[in-house]
């Protein structure tokens, strides 16, 4: 865990004081609303439908018990007792008052946290693989790189007023658990010819109105060159990215319109100019960062208590992934209780998660982009005890990777930009398939729901994607199929005309029964089946001829 040094602490406090002053100037009118808006966004503060919303950064998704308890405290003291974990591995509070926000930011600074650059047209909070440090397949822990990028991008004077938001993710394995290729810049740690670690760089990914898969711009970048290389990309983007149209202002459009080869040339030219002026990263700082992510003091293997209940066994099978050590497991705690709001946690649940991390799991927690909480280092012998405590708090849902483990953005229940609701659709789908008892029969399935074209719910990369729209004043849901957010990223294909709020759950049910009908055997997953048979059987299931419909009814 990275702990703030004096510089970090003073910096974050300085920013809190600055924001306190900005709020005062907004209230006395010396800052206009137009001027205050981007300033508050850069401090994580939105105005939603019913209230302000404060988005707090959880850099590369990493938390410890102290931080998690402080989030619980904030939820109780200044909000309504719960928070919402997002697909950017941040947490949002939905009910803060403007006048309280500086105090909330101070409370965050008390535990080495902040809300800086969680919104606005700047470099956003850097994300990483949520299994970092625990996965067997990683080359090294991606978080030192992510922390270096957090520091480099924080209050970067040149890139604080970009044409649009800018998201960076870092992973260190072949297998992509962080949707790398939907980021403006994706950094993947790879090994070079002499086995030395370096970076493969992707650029121009993004979901939203024009979804694009990021393209490789550099197959290998020496580690020491990361900052000048990223500055080169950002500088080309800042100067040449479009500013005439909000929907064409992301770097993906520049890369697309310029062509990746020409764009690479521009970046490399800039990079060759910058490199001689760059004297390298301060080694003392770098070593301190690297030293902050050493593995915990793992215990020696000890006997595992017998697994007695079927519930425990099912939870272990579904929610516990392999750790780099055999006698450890990576536990994903589902924030997708059947009928609950995906990604929401109450303050009591946050405190329980903090307790479990502290008592059993080397005091580490992660937020995953799939809106769940991960305990990355759990000795397997503790699994029964953890399960019992989770169960008592309603957090033992055994559904990771299954049809009820749905990503859903806040949608029109909170978000001012929404065109339809997402949350109740997710709730109803989870409830329906739970009632049918089909979750395990269906197997691995990723449903992702966004409440507008901005695609915060990653619907384009869902095996089944659902996009909520407003069609002549009525909620309408468009389905995409075959999306994939892993190393083989694919943007899903639109199935056809949308469905009303009342029709969307039955439509999903028809897709699933078509899958169960056409799969070769239970081992063939939905996405494998879709790749084999294509859209046709699903289209037929979704849009049966009029007659078949009325007969079925």
């Amino acid at each position, binding site marked *: 865990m990275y702990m703030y040094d004096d*510089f970090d602490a*003073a*910096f974050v406090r*300085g920013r809190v004081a*600055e924001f306190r002053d*900005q709020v005062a*100037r907004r209230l006395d*009118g*010396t*800052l*206009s609303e137009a*001027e205050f808006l*981007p*300033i508050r966004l850069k401090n994580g503060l939105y105005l939603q439908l019913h209230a302000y919303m404060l988005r707090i950064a959880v850099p590369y998704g990493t938390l410890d018990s102290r931080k998690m308890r402080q989030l619980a405290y904030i939820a109780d003291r200044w909000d309504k007792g719960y928070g919402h974990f997002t697909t950017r591995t941040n947490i949002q509070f939905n009910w803060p008052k403007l006048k309280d926000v500086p105090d909330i930011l101070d409370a965050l600074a008390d535990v080495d946290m902040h809300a800086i650059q969680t919104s606005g*047209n700047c470099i956003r909070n850097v994300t990483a693989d949520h299994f970092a440090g625990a996965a067997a397949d990683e080359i090294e822990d991606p978080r030192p790189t992510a922390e*270096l990028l957090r*520091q*480099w991008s*924080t*209050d*970067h*004077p*040149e*890139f*604080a*007023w*970009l*044409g649009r938001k800018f998201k960076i993710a870092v992973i260190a394995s072949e297998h992509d658990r962080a949707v790398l290729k939907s980021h403006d810049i994706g950094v993947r740690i790879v090994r070079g010819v002499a086995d030395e670690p370096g970076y493969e760089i992707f650029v121009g990914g993004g979901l939203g109105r024009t979804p694009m898969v990021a393209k490789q711009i550099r197959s290998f970048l020496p580690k020491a060159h990361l*900052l000048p290389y990223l500055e080169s990309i950002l*500088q080309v983007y*800042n*100067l040449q990215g479009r*500013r005439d149209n909000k929907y064409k202002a992301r770097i993906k459009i520049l890369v697309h319109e310029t062509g990746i080869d020409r764009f690479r040339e521009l970046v490399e030219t800039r990079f060759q*100019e*910058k490199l001689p*002026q*760059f*004297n*390298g*990263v*301060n*080694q003392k*700082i*770098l070593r301190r960062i690297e030293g902050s992510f050493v593995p915990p003091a793992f215990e020696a293997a000890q006997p595992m208590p017998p697994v007695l209940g079927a519930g425990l066994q099912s939870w272990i099978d579904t929610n516990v992934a392999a750790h780099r050590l055999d006698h450890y497991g990576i536990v994903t705690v589902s924030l997708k209780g059947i009928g609950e709001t995906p990604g929401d946690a109450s303050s009591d649940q946050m405190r329980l998660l903090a307790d479990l991390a502290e008592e059993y799991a080397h005091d580490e927690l992660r937020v995953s982009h799939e809106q769940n909480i991960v305990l990355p280092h759990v000795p397997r012998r503790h699994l029964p005890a953890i399960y019992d405590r989770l169960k008592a708090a309603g957090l033992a849902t055994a559904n990771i990777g299954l049809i009820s483990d749905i990503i859903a953005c806040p949608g029109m229940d909170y978000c001012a930009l929404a065109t339809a609701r997402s949350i109740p659709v997710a709730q109803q789908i989870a409830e329906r398939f739970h009632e049918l008892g089909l979750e395990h029969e269906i197997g691995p399935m990723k449903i992702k729901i966004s409440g507008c074209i901005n695609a915060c719910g990653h619907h384009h990369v869902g095996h089944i994607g659902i996009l909520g729209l407003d069609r002549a004043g009525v909620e309408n849901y468009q389905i995409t199929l075959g999306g994939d957010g892993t190393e083989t990223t694919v943007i899903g294909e639109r199935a056809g005309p949308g469905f009303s709020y009342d029709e969307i759950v039955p439509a999903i049910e028809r897709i699933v029964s078509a899958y169960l009908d056409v799969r070769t055997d239970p081992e063939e997953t939905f996405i494998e089946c879709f790749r084999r048979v294509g859209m046709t059987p699903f289209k037929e299931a979704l849009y049966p001829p009029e007659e078949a419909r009325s007969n079925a009814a």
Partner: protein
Amino acid sequence: MTTIVTGNGISGDDWADRDVFAFDCFWNGQELPEEPLAVAFPNDREAADLVPWLDRIGLIVVDFPAFSDGRGFSVARRLRELGYRGRLRASGPLVSDQLRAALKVGFDEVAVAPSVAARQPASHWKVGAQESYQDRIAV
């Protein structure tokens, strides 16, 4: 009168009675007076184009059409990277909260738009002594 803000406070514009030439003055055959020259730099032009003339220029005024249009910050950084050592001014409706970034990327001063100057007194235009993350991580 234009208000000029630097890291040291507010002053008037000491270039006010001299001309500021358009970016294209070097190419359009225009007769240019004695040096040093002041040049207006639109934020969508290429900084490298000015390189042959940099030592004839005493002031580059980079235009900010809106405070939220941050291209000027990269223009300044680039001019400095290309070796320009003369005065560099940001001009437009920047707000006081942007002064720190402006100075960091290489601007010497900000010419504040009257619409902003009317609301933001001198006391708002302060930088603080804070070191930046970029200063600390790069040697």
